[in-house]
């Protein structure tokens, strides 16, 4: 059974968002997603300063098996990317909600978060 922390918000395409102390939205992929993808070997992240809109494909994670687009769960400007992933993409497999985070956005519209799934709704999605 995959790990679904209750303090995060989730998308149907298996990204998660956490709201950091500074109000920024940190984005990653769920435990379920990393397990389904298998060993990750390459990550293409957005560039700090990019403006991205909710639903845009804005990053790519590649496992030995396949490439998978990451869609922006919310809109905003990219303020940080996880540079550790360049040399060690397997951090996503090892710690998808911690060291394996992808990037951070400065949120434009906090109401976009309300449209996301909470842990319970995401778990239901996985069960279907």
């Amino acid at each position, binding site marked *: 059974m995959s790990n679904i922390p209750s303090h995060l918000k989730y998308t149907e395409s298996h990204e998660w968002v956490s709201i950091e102390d500074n109000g920024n939205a940190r984005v990653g992929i769920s435990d379920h997603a990393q397990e389904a993808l*298998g*060993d990750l*070997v390459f990550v293409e992240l957005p560039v700090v300063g990019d403006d991205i809109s909710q639903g845009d494909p804005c990053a*790519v994670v590649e496992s*030995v*098996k396949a*490439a998978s687009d990451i869609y922006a769960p919310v809109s905003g400007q990219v303020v940080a990317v996880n540079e550790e992933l360049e040399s060690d993409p397997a951090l996503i*497999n090892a710690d998808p909600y911690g060291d394996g985070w992808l990037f951070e956005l400065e949120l434009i519209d906090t109401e976009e978060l309300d449209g996301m799934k909470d842990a319970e709704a995401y778990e239901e999605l996985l069960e279907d």
Partner: protein
Amino acid sequence: MSKHTPLYNAHIAAGARMVDFGGWEMPINYGSQIEEHNKVRQAAGMFDVSHMTVVDINGAQARHFLSYLLANDVAKLQTPGRAFYTCMLNEEGGIVDDLITTFLDETFFRMVVNAATHDKDLAWINLQAKAFDVVVEERPELAMIAVQGPLARETVLALLPENDTSAAAEMKPFNAGQFGDLFISRTGYTGEDGFEISLPAEAAVVLWDQLLAAGVAPCGLGARDTLRLEAGMNLYGQDMDESVTPLESALGWTVALKDDRVFIGRETLLEQKAQGLEKKLVGLVLEGRGVLRPGQRVITQAGEGVTTSGSFSPTLQKAIAFARIPQSASETCQVDIRGKLLDCRIVRPPFARNGTVCEGVI
């Protein structure tokens, strides 16, 4: 309804992630594909390949029939137990399937063909067999386990009855023999030494557990694919199919054209040899970061081509691929990955075998 091999329960017990493969529910990995890959390069891993099709050719004209059916020449197989890799072609020289054939005696040859092509292979073999005094017999009751890696042979040998050990130990690559219930062949699809063992279902379950207890890592189709790619071995349906000949698939070495032996597809191969080939299948190594995948556009000085297989190579720690490109292209090319043109070097596979990176690929 997908089919299960006799080892299905063993896979589930080992925590396998199962996928559909040619109508069979097979393990893709048991956790980490890369760990499984490395285990085979460095120690020993095992694969359930029971979905593959064993076909026995029995009868007075067995050799004569295979001489006609196969692009490689069974005249090369004179010692009982000798095996080779070959393609089976259609009249146009297109590849119906690739397979391993073993000579057992003058009235008995064994072939192992792919699972995904089972129906068309059997239809083709049976159609061609009508003109010969042979019996084509499928052996669906046999399971098959491939044990591969530098420690594979010694691990298997230690599990054999004492009176079989020395004969099995002395078998050279591309040789096979029957040892009790076990048909053991020193072949594989990984670029490592090892055995492929055909055996009855109940015996397979026992052997799998014994190998597991001996420290052999269960490995899925994912690792099998990256291992064979590193080893420079084609995958049927991806790197080749009925639209290409062995000469266009880096398999010229498996085709015996020198004498006047008549075999299916010969005329096309002779024409291609006379006229020269337009395309060739090569290896690519991506210079920078990224992952090569099948179906990506390749740009060379001599025109465009396409990748047929591609992945991240755990041994090279770089992306590698096979690509079908214009004959005169050489040295470098670019591959279109999501609209970006990335530099690759054109190399001659294999990329890695026997635990290490092959010379000249990085």
